[in-house]
């Protein structure tokens, strides 16, 4: 007990202060590592290929990965509770195909967009009910929802459904120039990027500034303890799957707006990309530790990796998944090390 006095007489400065902060908050270590790797990749890319630290490259990175960021935010909620949601990729397929077909059939485009989001909400709600009230393993429940979503999308259509260029849905993908740099080096964003930024900010607020958010972390630490502390465990677990599903629906809107078409095979494996982004960003798969901003960095690491591979030209695209897997492995090993430290 005598070793517990942690108030130092004088605040240590500089590196030592940072080291002390890190040792006090070991949870932040994987997220810090993700940031370091992201910066390292930018520096390497700039040195090896050039034209990386440029407004248009970084703008495109955000525009092309806005949907992945939204998905990763949703999965952060789920994974923080110690759960998993495998259905998000299939939800995007069903939601986008349904949305585009309805708009082409003459529905009000805004109504169709709302429906696209609500389709995600519905999938999340069913997953949550299966998990919370029928005690199905999250892996199995969301796997079932994944097959359901993929199947429904294929029933609707098996060919690409194109969206008319003047459709309001496409307006969410219009590029807005914020800063006019030399030649094409502009800062450009799309409404999709703005939506992703709002989602990230809202998720950060919910997780760190509301009791619901703290309950998410508590459930991930120990579900039984959280229940015995009188926290609303059942409701919160429902909420995380509803949030994940809804954000998958929103990601479908953002992605379809950018691409202008939808197909039943869209989003295959995206749930795994989103999980990878979350894990790379420092969220423990066992739950209870992680940050939504880390997941954003994780999504950007994955996106930047694709950019670098394209720029290199020498790396076959087939190798992309191997590199992703390698990065993921490094991060999981890092997390094991952190967990081992924590158990001491």
């Amino acid at each position, binding site marked *: 007990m005598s070793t517990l006095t942690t108030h130092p007489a004088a605040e240590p400065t500089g590196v030592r202060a940072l080291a002390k902060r890190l040792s006090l908050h070991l*949870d932040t270590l994987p997220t810090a590592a993700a940031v370091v790797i992201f910066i390292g990749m930018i520096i390497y890319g700039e040195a090896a290929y050039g034209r990386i630290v440029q407004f248009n490259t970084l703008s495109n990175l955000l525009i092309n990965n806005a949907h992945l960021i939204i998905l990763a935010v949703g999965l952060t909620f789920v994974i923080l509770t110690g759960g998993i949601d495998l259905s998000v990729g299939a939800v995007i397929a069903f939601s986008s195909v349904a949305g585009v077909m309805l708009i082409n059939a003459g529905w009000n485009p805004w109504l169709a967009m709302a429906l696209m989001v609500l389709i995600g909400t519905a999938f999340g709600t069913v997953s949550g009910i299966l998990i919370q009230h029928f005690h199905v393993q999250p892996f199995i429940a969301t796997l079932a929802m994944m097959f359901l979503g993929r199947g429904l999308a294929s029933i609707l259509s098996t060919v690409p459904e194109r969206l008319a260029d003047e459709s309001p849905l496409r307006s969410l993908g219009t590029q807005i120039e914020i800063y006019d740099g030399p030649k094409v080096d502009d800062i450009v964003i799309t409404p999709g990027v703005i939506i992703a930024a709002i989602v990230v900010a809202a998720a950060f607020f919910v997780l760190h500034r509301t009791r619901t958010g703290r309950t998410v972390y508590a459930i991930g630490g120990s579900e039984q303890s959280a229940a015995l502390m009188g926290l609303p465990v059942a409701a919160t677990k429902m909420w995380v799957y509803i949030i994940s599903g809804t954000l998958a629906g929103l990601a479908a809107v953002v992605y379809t707006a950018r691409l202008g078409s939808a197909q039943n095979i869209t989003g295959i494996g995206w749930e795994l990309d989103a999980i990878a982004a979350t894990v790379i960003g420092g969220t423990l798969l066992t739950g209870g530790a992680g940050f939504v901003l880390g997941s954003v960095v994780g999504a950007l690491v994955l996106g930047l990796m694709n950019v670098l591979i394209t720029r290199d030209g020498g790396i076959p695209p087939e190798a992309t998944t191997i590199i992703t897997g390698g990065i993921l492995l490094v991060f999981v090993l890092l997390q094991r090390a952190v967990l081992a430290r924590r158990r001491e």
Partner: protein
Amino acid sequence: MSESLPIVEMAGISISFPGVKALDEVGLRLFPGEVHTLMGENGAGKSTLIKALTGVYKIDEGEIRIAGEPRRLGGTADAQSAGISTVYQEVNLCTNLTIGENVMLGHEVRGAAGINWRATHRAAGQTLKKLGLGHLNPKQALSTLPLAVQQLVAISRSMVAQCKVLILDEPTSSLDANEVEQLFTVIRSLRDQGVAILFVSHFLDQVYAISDRLTVLRNGRFEGEYRISDIDRAQLISKMIGKDIAALKSLDAKDSRRVRPDAEPLYSAKGIGRKGAIDATDIELHRGEVVGLAGLLGSGRTELARLIYGADRPDTGEVTLNGEQTEITTPAKALARRIAFSSENRRDEGIIRDLSVRENLVLAVQARRGWARPLPRREQDAIVEKYVSALGVRPADPERPIRLLSGGNQQKVLLGRWLATEPELLILDEPTRGIDVGAKAEIQEYVSVLADEGLSVLFISSEIEEVVRQSDRIIVLKDHRKIAELEGGQGVSADSIVTVIAEDGLGDASADAAVREEVTT
């Protein structure tokens, strides 16, 4: 302590589970500013009563009044809003969060921009300070604290919830003496602040050190409410086990004792122990001898048996088997060295419900052979025939699923399962619990026969009379340590064992008091 109005009054509480009446018209009163202990043996209904008070179980009959108002409690959150907080045996906090977050979870200070962390941590710090934990940094990770301090943090947490009633369900079972003293200091300060504390512990010394009043339950019934000064240890134990002192005295010990051979022991352990389970203990077991383990529940009986069998790994100690030094660290090693252990938990660790009597019987033999060498049906039938008739399993139908048999007959099958491995040492943990009188007598008799045939038996039972009747030698355990070893004979009775347990406590209590003086000065 003034005789004011009770803050909690439970009256005529009955709760039934399928086939069992867990509580039968039980009452409990808690007054502000008192420490009230709930006493009773395992299965007496203590935890059911607590769960009724915390809203986990619905009550079938009866009434709960809190501060005079009748209340219906639908869950933990309900109970908390009524001012009832619980700290459990296992620390129920989230080790992934900081101390402050744990203290304030669900009660964070909120401002316009959501949770105000600065104010929240300040509030946590103030709450910790009230309990003498002011030196803790609320921003530090909970996992850096020792278990005992985590327990205190859990209590701080209940203070945030403005609790008027604090339930401590065996909070001391994993704490050492100093940590218990620290906990008691906190409990006393809460009591002085007017909180009603309901304390559950199996440690008699602690009960006498901290309580003002106690309620005794037995077999789901209310046995009585006493001031701690009005009841001594022997009386309390006899209330708990339900035999009055006179009845305990009248039980005669068995006359004919097997003579212990002077040969070297079959099994001998020196200083065998495991942290949190049982202190270092010496034990010798001879061939042809029944050794009983006596002690109240939680005294370390099962823990000792599990160490001998290797179900838990001993931290310390040396084991000699048949004169050779050996290490028994897994059940497989124990089986290979011909030690068998029949668990007290017949339902979960004993029978496989949906397998037949035959399959259950041959299970241990098969396990020893390994899955690659199935036991031929002919040998199976031979084993089954031998033990079904020797033990009198009824009905004598080996193909019947074991779940359809009565508890007593299930226990006979389990006994047969271990005997079929031809052990030299048989450990029986509560072999007669919850079975009918006839089957009980049969099993007791068979155990004696086995010892006469040269088997070494370690016999564990909550019923002290049964241990006395059955054993040639009795090892008395208390508070996770061996306090006495008694040769069976005319001089030993259930009463003398109760006296040993009670008097050991008295000696200890004064020693504890001396230690406490040192701590406080």
